[in-house]
């Protein structure tokens, strides 16, 4: 830690915001161009998407490097630290609301749209004239809608891999907390061990998830196109999986930063932010395990 200034640090200028805006634009412009291309048409979309994505990684590296340097030089007083904490908290809240949109969609189709298609409530006439054959149910029987889009499928059994994944994520929350306490107590070896263990658990979760997806596609015929069951299943677990991936990468970077001696007993907001994020993906998983797999 460098010398402490009791002043609110405001950098005079920074190239990272404009770099970030440009690479984000390249990424989405490439993606849009790719998606909108006619079948068989070879556009520049894919290339642009790749360039933009690599640019985003580079931008994060550069931006965080300058922030870490400023932190190591002691430019950040406790007030700056509070700003960072609030930023992370509200960012996680926005993520909660993002998942909320998809959970909301899940509850809506289960509570309303599927039963209505089966003739419940004010869906009586729709059912009678359009889908009189359809016996509404969730899961394997009717979860892909009255047209049985994507063909018959089986659901993933909750008490196999999903249960294992629940245990993995719950224990990873414990290990990251142990690592945090060790950091506060100044036991660097213990921090590295338990943080490393957390990274491995995150990777293990992702491995199981990938295995489960492969099995769903190959053996259960459960795909993204399996009606509303398939899309809620894969979009919810998929977005969660992306967050676990990001969380695991962040934990790995924090592990390297512990190794490099970036954190002290008092100043380790980077560690805490990633730990909060990890707990957040953990809680989302509990919701998923309950509402997507079990119920």
């Amino acid at each position, binding site marked *: 830690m460098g010398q402490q200034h009791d002043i609110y640090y*405001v950098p005079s200028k920074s190239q990272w915001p404009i770099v970030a805006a440009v690479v984000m634009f390249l990424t989405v412009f490439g993606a849009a161009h790719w998606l909108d291309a006619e079948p068989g048409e070879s556009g520049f979309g894919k290339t642009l998407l790749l360039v933009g994505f690599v640019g985003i990684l580079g931008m994060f590296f550069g931006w965080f490097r300058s922030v870490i340097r400023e932190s190591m030089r002691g430019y950040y007083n406790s007030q700056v630290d509070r700003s960072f904490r609030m930023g992370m908290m509200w960012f996680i809240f926005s993520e909660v609301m993002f998942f909320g949109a998809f959970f909301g969609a899940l509850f809506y189709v289960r509570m309303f749209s599927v039963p209505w298609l089966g003739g419940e409530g004010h869906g009586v006439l729709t059912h009678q004239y359009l889908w009189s054959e359809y016996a509404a149910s969730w899961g394997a029987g009717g979860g892909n809608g009255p047209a049985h889009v994507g063909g018959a499928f089986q659901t993933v059994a909750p008490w196999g891999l999903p249960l294992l994944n629940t245990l993995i994520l719950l224990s990873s929350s414990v290990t990251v907390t142990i690592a945090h306490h060790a950091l506060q107590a100044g036991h660097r070896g213990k921090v590295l061990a338990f943080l490393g263990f957390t990274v491995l658990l995150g990777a293990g979760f992702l491995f199981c998830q990938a295995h489960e997806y492969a099995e769903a596609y190959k053996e259960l015929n459960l795909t993204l196109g399996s009606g509303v069951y398939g899309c809620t299943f894969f*979009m919810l677990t998929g977005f969660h999986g992306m967050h676990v991936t990001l969380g695991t990468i962040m934990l790995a970077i924090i592990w390297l930063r512990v190794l490099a001696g970036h954190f002290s007993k008092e100043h380790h907001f980077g560690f805490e932010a990633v730990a909060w994020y990890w707990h957040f993906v953990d809680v989302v998983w509990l919701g998923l395990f309950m509402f997507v797999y079990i119920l």
Partner: protein
Amino acid sequence: MAHAATHDEHHDEHHEHLNFFQRWVMSTNHKDIGTLYLVFSLLMFFIGGSFAMVIRAELFKPGLQLVQPYFFNEMTTMHALVMIFGAVMPAFVGLGNWMIPLMVGAPDMALPRMNNLSFWILPFAFALLLSTLFLPGGGPAGGWTMYPPLSLQSASTAYVVFAVHLMGISSIMGAINIIATILNMRAPGMDLLKMPVFVWSWLITAFLLIAVMPVLAGAVTMLLTDKYFNTHFFDAAGGGDPVLFQHVFWFFGHPEVYIMILPAFGIISEIIPTFARKPIFGYKAMVFAIASIAFLSFIVWAHHMFAVGLPLGAEIFFMYATMLIAVPTGVKVFNWVATMWGGSMTFETPMLFAVAFVILFTIGGFSGLMLALVPADFQYHDTYFVVAHFHYVLVTGAIFAIIAATYYWIPKWTGHMYSEFWGKMHFWNSVVWVNVLFFPQHFLGLAGMPRRIPDYNVAFANFNMISSIGGFLFGASQLIFVGVLIHCVWFSKKKATDRVWEGAKGLEWTVPSPAPHHTFSIAPVVHDEELAHGHVED
């Protein structure tokens, strides 16, 4: 708490030697970024306005005159998207950026680099959105609400979805920054219940933004996967429901409506006390009214969907919940009037716009109450009555408040007074023509003219012609605004004093005019009697 700020390890002497690119593109300064937001917003106001001129020109007479129906639909869609996400929201963020640190005595925004990113995403997002107009398949034409399956039929869905994602990221980061600034950067003595109402309104708006922009992102992501990745969220054959989109969209959309009006309430609550030379009537009631409106905004979304076939219980619930909003809004209007009551009022341009806001926004509120009634809404739904309603709250509401704020604070920004004569010319032209433009649309709607249609029954011809004439002249009146701004920034000789307005109170008037590049590097000492609303009775 720390009371001072630094700006670089090399300190301030190098600091003012940034070249043009460094100052504006690599900025971390809340004033420069605020200016960028405001200039961008003005540009978008004219782009969106030009789309409106196309719409009004086509509707000048019955029959197809100028444009093809698909292009007409692109114009209505793009007009809304550009005005909402490009003009109104960035204008409020720009005003917040400029004024919140000045009003709470902070050296800058809490997260200055992220502040710049929030802005610079926007030009790219709108380049992406507007580029769709030049694509072979055309731009989005299914309305700004993007209802499936209609919206999925245009070729440009992916561009629109990603543009909306970018705008959402920008808004969320901007909102996080504003919350962190307000909660963490206030000068000592600037207690929460001593903050100006404008700051309060932004604190609550920022919460709304963080809560609902991700929901919009989720909704458009489902559109994207339904179109390109074979999902069936909105397809009944696969068990989904197009109405699901409307629920998710309006869960975002209704709080969004208040995102576009709560900062306007804050602005008006600053301007009226200044020109009535009285503290605001019922400061705490004003704050709690804003908070109540924000809370209610989360439980009224389905009033946009009364005609879609909701269960009866839902229609009744959403009808009553919607009508409840009239209570806190009524408190606000009452308090603005009570603030003026017995005040020694003068009518400079900001005050003229503020008074017009109070009256005309209230008309928009009343037509909103009419729309809230389920049985009546079956008649009004998707007619020009709805168009008249939301233009009264957004143009004479949000836009008038933004214009009022610009006249109110521009002497502080530039150090010069604007031309009062031309400001008043701008006001009287705007207020007359905006009513010629939108008031007849109430009659058209009640008579049954549908929205978003390029042609209409000859029975509607007269009112449409009147409305179009009002539209062209209201559009032309805004050129006066640009003239006043250019004059004020570059040519005005009349220096502004620090306090600018005789009755102005609050920290922002204690710094010189123009406000120096860095203010409150050392936190100011807050004297309660200097604050606009300093003495709050418990």
